[in-house]
């Protein structure tokens, strides 16, 4: 093709690709003198667009004719027979190589895909895999590709042999190897399936097993992996040279120490004469680094250099500390908060912009953000600011999750008939961080409307203000012996003020007014309750309520804490001037301990006690009566006696958030309804049966003193791995309600054990628990409830 001036360009063979695209990549245009190597260059350019399988340049008079054959496009791509690698991971991988529906088909890509798949399967120990691509031509220059994979069985590890280990047996060393021979747990741990990176991880464990027990110049001579001819069995051999046991002779801290030497000395876990342990040496450098990072040295480097003295078998360890520059945080950037406002996140940060870098402050900020309960995950990482060597930007990536619940419920239960309930609660109302909830419930025995609002940041430093109003009318009378059947309707309004006292402690006080109207029904309501109201002389109880509570919270997350704990103490009183002046003390202490391998132990104790004060007197006397079976005269309430603790404020025990395995609010003292022939209240028999009373069983009336203890072990279950707000735990609950402090007796405690699932589902918190009471009081038997399920209630 000798050079000529191109007057026009014509392209033949185009169907899918537009002429414009070819012109765009073609470096020749009208009026150019076309030389040979320009033509070559054009052909090469068109080829690496990968659109064409063949490109030819021809000359027709002074017109340049570009003949192209378009590569077929892929109409259909199917992958069959793969179960180790998920199909969509494969499809994504193929898309990067350019093999996806709609793309141009290129035979070289098929070959690369085949090799890549075989390599991936070899990595997973499936050495018998076969990958066969079938390409079928379709009309309109299209192809359909079907990749057939036959994975075959994975090669099982038949033997892991460590040679030369005289100090420890093979079994001791291979205890926490990931690779091993088949054992009863292999179906789940897959430890007998060979993979290269699992093996390299294990060899590192072998090395550190020795190095942590004094073998300073331990050497892994060589390791061989052999496979049986039928590629179904693999044998792993590791040859080790143990060397001798070394002890620490001396330790030095060199370099720029920033802090006085004795402060850093406290972080050195290694003392003279100790057995050499690499883990202890590394732990020392990590903790020195962590300490320096707390005071501004974000890029501190601490490397340990052990010097071995071969004949005395001692090691002289030196740590070189290079603190690097003092680092300042220039900007804190939040990412992922599409719903929560920036201020809500920034006010939780303890690391400010424009101040020196403190790892402790950053860790504390991460915990405070997690304690909000608005985010699934919070990750904070730092990037150096380009152009300056001592400034860093912090990026806080949050993944939001719904922090509230919107529930509509239509339920039916034979006691309360149709229950219509709806509740809206949002802990992060419109992203402003305020907590707002409105709930209404309508059923035969209960109509309740409750509204609450809390703004945690009235002032800049976190003084919070909240309002709460409830209106409820409960009539337990037709609830059978389930509850103490009396009806009370309460209206109350209160406002709270929360004041942070330290980073972990908060004191909040609240004031409110409320009125409760109690009416009891002769014969249905347990007699002491009826007498109490008559003695009191009032049916509507007005009260000024005031409460003071102190909370110390060091938990590291709201939904699934694994560290720290919470101490709360609350005193709420009906202030003087209320009809019944009482005070209630509520105390709770709990703590979480991660005990390694993913298990978390949780222990929680609750105490509640209430009493009246300011010796109010009963207004009138109720009649005395002598019990049917003789004995001294039962005295009802006498005018002039001091008022007892009001029964409608009594504490109950049992229920899904209390002692599991028992129905809600059914544990504690129980009293029969109605009076016998000569006016004495019917005494409940030991098994809770009430002779000739309207209800056959005694009704739980609760008590003024309640105690509850729970221990739970959260289990590391693989399938719950990525739902970080779901946890399964084994629990033991112990608790009981007593009429008053004096009637507490240790034998009276109820206890149950079982398993329970806590899940913050997108629509609201959900608890399912299976409880088996193993210590019950007489009369509890009819209140057992094996499976309990609650949904939407804040726990």
């Amino acid at each position, binding site marked *: 093709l000798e050079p000529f001036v191109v007057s026009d360009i014509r392209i033949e063979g185009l169907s899918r690709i537009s002429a414009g695209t070819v012109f765009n990549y073609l470096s020749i245009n009208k009026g150019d003198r076309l030389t040979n190597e320009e033509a070559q260059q054009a052909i090469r350019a068109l080829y690496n667009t990968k659109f064409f399988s063949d490109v030819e340049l021809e000359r027709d008079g002074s017109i340049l004719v570009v003949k192209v054959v378009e590569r077929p496009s892929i109409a259909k791509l199917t992958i069959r027979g793969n179960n180790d690698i998920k199909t969509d991971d494969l499809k994504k991988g193929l898309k990067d190589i350019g093999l996806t*529906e709609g793309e141009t088909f290129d035979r070289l890509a098929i070959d690369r895909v085949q090799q890549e798949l075989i390599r991936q399967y070899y990595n997973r120990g499936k050495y018998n895999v076969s990958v066969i691509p079938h390409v079928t031509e379709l009309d309109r220059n299209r192809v359909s590709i079907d990749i057939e994979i036959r994975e075959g069985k994975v090669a099982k590890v038949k033997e892991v042999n460590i040679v030369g280990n005289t100090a420890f047996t093979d079994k001791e060393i291979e205890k926490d190897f990931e690779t091993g021979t088949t054992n009863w747990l292999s179906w789940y741990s897959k430890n007998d399936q060979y993979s290269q990176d699992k093996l390299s991880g294990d060899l590192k464990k072998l090395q550190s097993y020795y190095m942590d027990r004094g073998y300073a110049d331990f050497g892994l001579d060589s390791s061989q992996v052999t496979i049986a001819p039928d590629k179904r069995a693999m044998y792993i051999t590791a040859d080790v040279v143990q060397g001798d046991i070394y002890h620490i002779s001396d330790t030095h801290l060199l370099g720029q120490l920033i802090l006085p030497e004795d402060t850093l000395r406290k972080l050195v876990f290694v003392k003279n004469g100790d057995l050499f342990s690499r883990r202890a040496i590394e732990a020392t450098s990590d903790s020195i680094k962590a300490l320096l990072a707390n005071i501004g040295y974000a890029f501190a480097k601490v490397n340990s250099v052990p010097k071995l003295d071969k004949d005395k078998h001692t090691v002289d360890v030196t740590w070189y500390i290079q603190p690097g520059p003092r680092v300042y945080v220039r*900007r804190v950037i939040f990412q992922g908060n599409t*719903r929560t406002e*920036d201020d809500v996140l920034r006010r939780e940060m303890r690391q400010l*912009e424009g101040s020196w870098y403190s790892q402790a402050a950053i860790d504390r900020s991460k915990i405070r953000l997690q304690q909000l309960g608005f985010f699934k995950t919070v990750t904070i990482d730092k990037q150096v600011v380009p152009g300056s060597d001592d400034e860093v930007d912090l990026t806080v990536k949050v993944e939001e999750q719904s922090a509230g619940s919107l529930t509509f419920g239509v339920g039916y239960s034979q006691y309360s008939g149709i229950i219509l309930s709806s509740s809206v609660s949002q802990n992060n109302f419109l992203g402003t961080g*305020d907590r707002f909830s409105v709930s209404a419930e309508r059923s035969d025995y209960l109509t309740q409307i409750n509204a609450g609002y809390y703004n945690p*940041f009235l002032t*800049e430093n976190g003084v919070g203000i909240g309002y709460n109003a409830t209106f409820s009318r409960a009539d337990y009378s037709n609830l059978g012996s389930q509850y103490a059947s009396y009806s009370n309707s309460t209206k109350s309004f209160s406002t709270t003020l929360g004041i942070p006292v330290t980073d972990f402690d908060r004191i909040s006080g609240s004031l409110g007014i409320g009125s409760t109207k109690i009416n009891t029904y002769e014969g249905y309501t347990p007699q002491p309750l009826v007498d109490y109201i008559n003695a009191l002389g009032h049916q509507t109880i007005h009260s000024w309520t005031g409460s003071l509570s102190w909370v110390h919270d060091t938990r590291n997350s709201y939904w699934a804490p694994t560290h720290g704990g919470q101490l709360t103490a609350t005193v709420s009183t009906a202030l003087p001037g209320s009809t019944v002046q009482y005070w209630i003390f509520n105390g709770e202490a709990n703590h979480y301990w991660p005990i390694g391998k993913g298990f978390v132990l949780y222990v929680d104790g609750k105490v509640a006690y209430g009493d009246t004060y300011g010796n109010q007197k009963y207004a009138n006397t109720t009649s005395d009566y002598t019990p049917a079976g003789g004995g001294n005269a039962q005295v009802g309430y006498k005018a002039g006696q001091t008022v007892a603790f009001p029964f409608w404020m009594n504490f109950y025990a049992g229920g899904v958030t209390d002692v599991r395995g028992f129905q809600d609010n059914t544990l504690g003292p129980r009293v029969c309804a109605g009076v016998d022939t000569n006016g004495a209240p019917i005494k409940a028999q030991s098994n809770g049966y009430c002779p000739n009373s309207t209800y056959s069983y005694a009704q739980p009336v609760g008590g003024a003193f309640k105690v509850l203890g729970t221990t739970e072990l959260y289990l590391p279950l693989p399938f719950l791995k990525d739902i970080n707000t779901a946890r399964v735990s084994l629990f033991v609950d112990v608790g009981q309600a007593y009429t008053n402090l004096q009637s507490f007796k240790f034998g009276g405690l109820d206890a149950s054990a079982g398993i329970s699932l806590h899940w913050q589902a997108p629509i609201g918190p959900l608890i399912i628990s299976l409880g088996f009471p193993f210590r019950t009081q007489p009369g509890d038997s009819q209140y057992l409830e094996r499976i309990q399920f609650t949904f939407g209630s804040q726990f």
Partner: protein
Amino acid sequence: CSWFRHNGDPLDTLPLPQLYAKAHNDLMHADYSAAEKAYQRLIARFPSGPFNQQAQLELAYAQYKNNKPDDAYSTVNRFIKANPLNDHVDYAYYLRGLINFDRTSGVIERAFASERTGAQTRRDQGFNLKAFDDFSELTRRFPDSAYSADARQRMIYLRNVLAQFEVNVADFYIRNKAYVAAADRAQYVIEHYQESPQAGDALAILCRSYLALGQKDLAAQTRSVLVLNYPDHPYLKDPKWPHSPSMLRKMIPFSGHY
């Protein structure tokens, strides 16, 4: 007609022109998910037909309207890579910017927020930045396209939102008495968004934080620049200018924090 012979989904059998007509019809009647399915079948069945490019563009629009911003974004990107010289490619760049234009805050937040920008200026600015870059690429590649004028308006709006975000953060640090942080943020606005109206607020905050830091002459310098450019700025009249709402107002629920 067809359902007598029950030969499966009509999308698989319709010839090209009718299939495109059906898809286009669905799009016009705002039935975006049906339109999206129709366009996807059209592209898969007729990859090299005449309607292919138009279908890809309208698929992206349908996905955008069907509230699937991520799918729309990847479809538009594929369209731009496949046909860089198509005569509608400037619309593709414009659509790419539009997709991320109002993704910053959820629908409810925007409806309740005091004014439209209030919601956008207080949340993650990632999408605003991306939209700003996409629009600027459009105005750079096709300065005289029909969409560039509107794109420039949107860029100005986005820049003001970004500047307002920085000023909000600076205001937060002033309220929390972290004056060096407030000065840095204000300086960031002055350096990056000079022409935005928020630069005035930034200058005011910078001046106030210098005063708090005891830098009299730096504060005087900044104040003189403020007087020069924004003579009627509220800060000039009252030194405590960025007031946070009074304690009483904040005690009323839902009254907002700023």
